[in-house]
C-alpha cells in the first residue's frame, strides 16, 4: 500500500501535464511555448515533430512545421537538411557553400 500511493500520485501528475505535442493543438500562446520548447531541444526533437507534421489536424501540422523550421532553417523540412542563416557562418570550412537567396524566410510559411 505504501508503494502504491506515490505511484498513483506520479501517474496522476504525469497525466495532468500535456506533452509538447499535445500543446501544439492548444491555444496560440500555449502552442507558441511548445514550439519554443521544441526549438530549444534542437535536432533531437525532429523525429517527434515529423510525426506531428503528418497529423490529421491541420493546425498541429502547421505548428509542427513551424517548429521544424526553427530547428532546420527550412519550414516543414522532412529530409534532415540543416541550413545556416548567413554566409559568414559557413565560410572557412572544408566544404564549398550553397547559398539560396529568396524572398521571405525559408523557415516560415509563405516564403
Amino acid at each position: 500500500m505504501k508503494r502504491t500511493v506515490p505511484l498513483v500520485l506520479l501517474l496522476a501528475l504525469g497525466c495532468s501535464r500535456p506533452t509538447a505535442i499535445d500543446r501544439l493543438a492548444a491555444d496560440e500562446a500555449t502552442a507558441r511555448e511548445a514550439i519554443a520548447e521544441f526549438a530549444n531541444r534542437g535536432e533531437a526533437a525532429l523525429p517527434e515533430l515529423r510525426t506531428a507534421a503528418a497529423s490529421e489536424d491541420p493546425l498541429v501540422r502547421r505548428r509542427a512545421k513551424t517548429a521544424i523550421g526553427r530547428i532546420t532553417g527550412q519550414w516543414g523540412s522532412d529530409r534532415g537538411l540543416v541550413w545556416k542563416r548567413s554566409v559568414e557562418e559557413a565560410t572557412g570550412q572544408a566544404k564549398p557553400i550553397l547559398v539560396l537567396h529568396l524572398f521571405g524566410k525559408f523557415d516560415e510559411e509563405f516564403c
Partner: protein
Amino acid sequence: MTFSDKRVVDLIRERLIPVWESVAPVSIATFDLGDGRTVKGTMGGEIAIYFCRPDGKVFDILPALHSPHVTYWAIKNALDFYEKTGATDAAISRFHSERLAEMVASGAGLPSPEAQRSITRRRAKEASADKATRDLGEMVHSKTGIVSGAEPITVVEPGGLELHKRAVHTAMSSAAPRSPQEWKEHVFLQILQEELTGGEFEYRVDTLAPISIIED
C-alpha cells in the same frame, strides 16, 4: 519542392554547407471579394542559388526555381568544377568565358518564343494603371503560392534555364570573384528582372479591372 527532393538533399548534405539568406520580404496580397470571401497569395518569389568556395566567393549561379532534376545536375556540375579546378579566380573566368563562347557560337540561350511571350505578358502587366491589377497579374503570371485550403499550393512557371545560363556566363566571364550579396542586385534586377521589394498588401476588389483578370 526542390529542397525536399531526396537526391538534391542528399547531395547538399554530403558535399556542401547550405545557407539561406532573405533578399526581401515576401509579397503577400489579399483581395477582399466581399461577402467574407478573400483570395490570398504570394507574388513573384524568384530564387537564386549561388555556388561558393569555402571563402564565400561565388563560382557559379543558378538563377530561378527549377525542377529537382535540373537543380540536382546544376549542383553536381558545380561540384565537379570545384573539385577539378579548386575554383581559382582564373578557372572561374576561363570556365564562364568558354561556356559563353560555346553558347554564342551555337545560338543557345536566346529568348525562346515562350520566354518572349512571358516577357511580353510581364511588360503588359507593368503597364496596368493600378497596383491591385498589377499584383493580381503577378499572381497569375508568376510563381504563386495560393491559399485555398489547409495547405498552400505553389504554382511554378517554367524558368528559362539556357537564357539565364547565358546571362550568368556573360556576367561572370569578366567579373572579379564576389560574394552572393555582391551579386544579388545583378541577379535579381538584371537577370531575373524582379524588384527587391516586398510586403503585405490588401485590396478591396471594387474596381472592374482586377475582376476582369479573374474572369479571364
